[in-house]
């Protein structure tokens, strides 16, 4: 049993890394909004899903225009991600304006309920549009880099099997690292980043220091949602088929990642995403093997939630977060 787990390990690691990168970037969106508004943006998973659909639709449009065959693949990929980021970013701003800003002073329960409402409305809107155009809400998109690549991991040690990597996996990991680096630089090195951290620390004091709080919040929503949208495109490219309900479970796991790393902590979210992705892949590959087929890979989602619950019980501030004292 151990040898078969070991032999599939390189494949699991690579797939887990790709999935983890997706979780990590989505988790960034949760963590940024939470850091600033102390609100779980329930609709973030749906923004991610919208990004996937926008990306797929853009590809279809490019294909119709004949652009796909004439331009090199990476330019198309870049354009698709860019368009998707802009649209989902604007969507995030719109969501903030309509559903969250009027409730900024309301009790938390109320804004949470509004957030759940937004996520439902988005799911159905996308379903409606997709069904109207393609006749079915489950959409199979065009894959740009379809090839796979054989990684000779067996040459490292005889216990490992060779592993197969989709070309897209490299793109996912590359883009995710690029996005995370850019965000890290933005938050830590630019003026707007300073303003963002100031608002996260204390909104009222920040506003006294002549920071336009509303603008900062809008910017946060834009960036967080754009990150989600970009990941949506990556996801659609990797797995081929999308439907309007992918955002909910994935959002939940990305949130778990954000909590694991310490919510509000950007570097923590990156780590948490990778950890959850690797764990999930490991569980889905080996759970059946370990329990002799009694509990199959269907239980991999249970794993993610169990981690969430355990973290919340034993270390609610997350691995990299700081515990906050609460006052009346």
């Amino acid at each position, binding site marked *: 049993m151990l040898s078969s787990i070991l032999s599939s390990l390189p494949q699991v690691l690579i797939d887990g890394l790709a999935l983890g990168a997706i979780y990590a970037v989505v988790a960034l969106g949760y963590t940024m909004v939470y850091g600033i508004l102390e609100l779980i943006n329930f609709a973030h998973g749906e923004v991610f899903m919208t990004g996937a659909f926008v990306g797929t639709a853009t590809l279809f449009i490019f294909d119709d225009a004949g652009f796909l065959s004439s331009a090199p693949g990476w330019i198309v990929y870049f354009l698709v991600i860019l368009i998707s980021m802009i649209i989902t970013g604007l969507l995030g701003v719109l969501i903030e304006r309509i*559903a969250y800003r009027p409730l900024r002073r309301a009790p938390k329960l109320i804004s*949470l*309920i509004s957030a759940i*409402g937004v996520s*439902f*409305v988005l799911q*159905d809107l996308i379903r409606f549009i997709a069904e109207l155009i393609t006749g079915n809400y489950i959409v199979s998109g065009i894959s740009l880099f379809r090839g796979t690549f054989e990684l000779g991991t067996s040459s490292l040690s005889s216990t490992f099997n060779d592993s197969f990597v989709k070309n897209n996996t490299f793109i996912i990991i590359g883009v995710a690292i690029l996005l995370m680096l850019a965000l890290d630089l933005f938050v830590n090195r630019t003026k707007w980043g300073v303003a963002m951290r100031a608002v996260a620390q204390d909104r009222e004091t920040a506003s006294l220091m002549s920071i336009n709080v509303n603008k900062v919040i809008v910017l946060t929503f834009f960036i967080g949602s754009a990150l989600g949208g970009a990941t949506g495109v990556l996801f659609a490219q990797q797995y081929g088929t999308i439907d309007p309900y992918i955002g909910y479970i994935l959002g*939940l796991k990305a949130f778990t990642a954000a909590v694991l790393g310490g919510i509000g902590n950007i570097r923590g979210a990156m780590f948490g995403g990778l950890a959850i992705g690797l764990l999930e892949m490991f569980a889905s590959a080996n759970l059946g093997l370990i329990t002799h087929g009694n*509990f199959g890979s269907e239980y991999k*989602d249970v794993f993610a939630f169990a981690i969430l619950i355990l973290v919340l019980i034993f270390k609610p501030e997350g691995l990299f977060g700081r515990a906050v004292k609460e006052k009346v």
Partner: protein
Amino acid sequence: MSGFKLALQNNKVLQLSLLAAFVLVSALSVYLTSRSVIAFILLLGSLLLLYYTSLSNGMKWAVAGLLLILVIPFATAGGPSHESYMEVATQCGIYVAMALGLNIVVGFAGLLDLGFVAFFAIGAYTYGIFATGQANNFIPGDLFPLSGDYFWVFIILGGIMAAIFGVLLGLPVLRVKGDYLAIVTLGFGEIVRIIFNNLEKPVNITNGAMGLSSISPPNLFGLQFTFPHQFYFIVLGILAVVIFGVRRFEHSRIGRSWKAVRENEIAAQSMGIPLIRTKLTAFAIGASFSGLMGVVFAAKQTFIDPSSFTLLESTTILVMVVLGGMGSVPGVILGAVLVTLLNLQVLAEFTGWLNQLSMQGIITLPNALSPVKMQRFIFGAILILIAIFRPHGLISARNRKIPLSQVKEGEAHEHPERSRTSQKVRRVNGS
């Protein structure tokens, strides 16, 4: 007009006769037309009118009982669609009980629970597993399926099972609050569904995605309950107990503690409210209402599978509570009935009507837009709109006011207890 309004406000006889006329007209129209959703909704609306009359509470309950037990079953008995009306009324009753359960958790105690349907599923499976041959797979002796006589015991058992799971969910989330709690309960609901969906290996307990079929219907002294109009009375009976219980809880010591915890956890704790016990009782009692109705649901459908217990169901129940007014018992009842009617009747009828129109070629409607599929959109929009424009819901919750004189009078009785408490405090401090 204003004179009439004033007269109406002060004159109980006038109110009662107007109500009677309204009930008579709507009941007759339900009775005489073969199938009219509007008439049926109007008939149910008479209960809302009753709520706004200035009759005494006991009187209101008596009239409501009369309407529910006699008028509605008889008025709907006229046409061929008797059973479908009764089915809708039964569903309304089931959802009202669940919404009241969730109202305890969300409305009274302020703990947002997004996996509430899990308790409903636990209740349903508690009866489903033992009332089919399924339990033979893990209990030797070929005792199962149990006959319908046991249904009545299982109503209680289902409630208890759900309450146990409520406490099990409650224990880990005690340290978690607000938004985290919402996510954890969401995860819990999903875990329960996944487990029910896959628990066919190593021992086949839930029969997985295939679900459990031919569950024994309830049986009372040889009388089999199979039709919706029979279940209607079971649901009505349970509902009476649930509503009575909720009203008693709301104004009891524990009810006031729930509200205190909702308003401010830390302040409540420093006033001596045991946080853990208060939250756990909220979870347990809320869950048990849902569990009771789960048993009834399983017996009514005679078939259950995990797809009846999705997140959409949990959200539907949340919409009922939020729409009606968090923490307001009459509001939640209204919200539950409205959403159920919308779900089962209005959307379906509207879709049928639109389909007819497009069949005749008057309008062309894409299949994607059919209102039955728009549930999520409608529920989402309700949640956003209510949150922004009417956060207290349709009928907002009111705290019961006690006149000052009564408080002063009560103080004399309160004193002995108070000194006992202070003694206890002193003893704790001394040790």
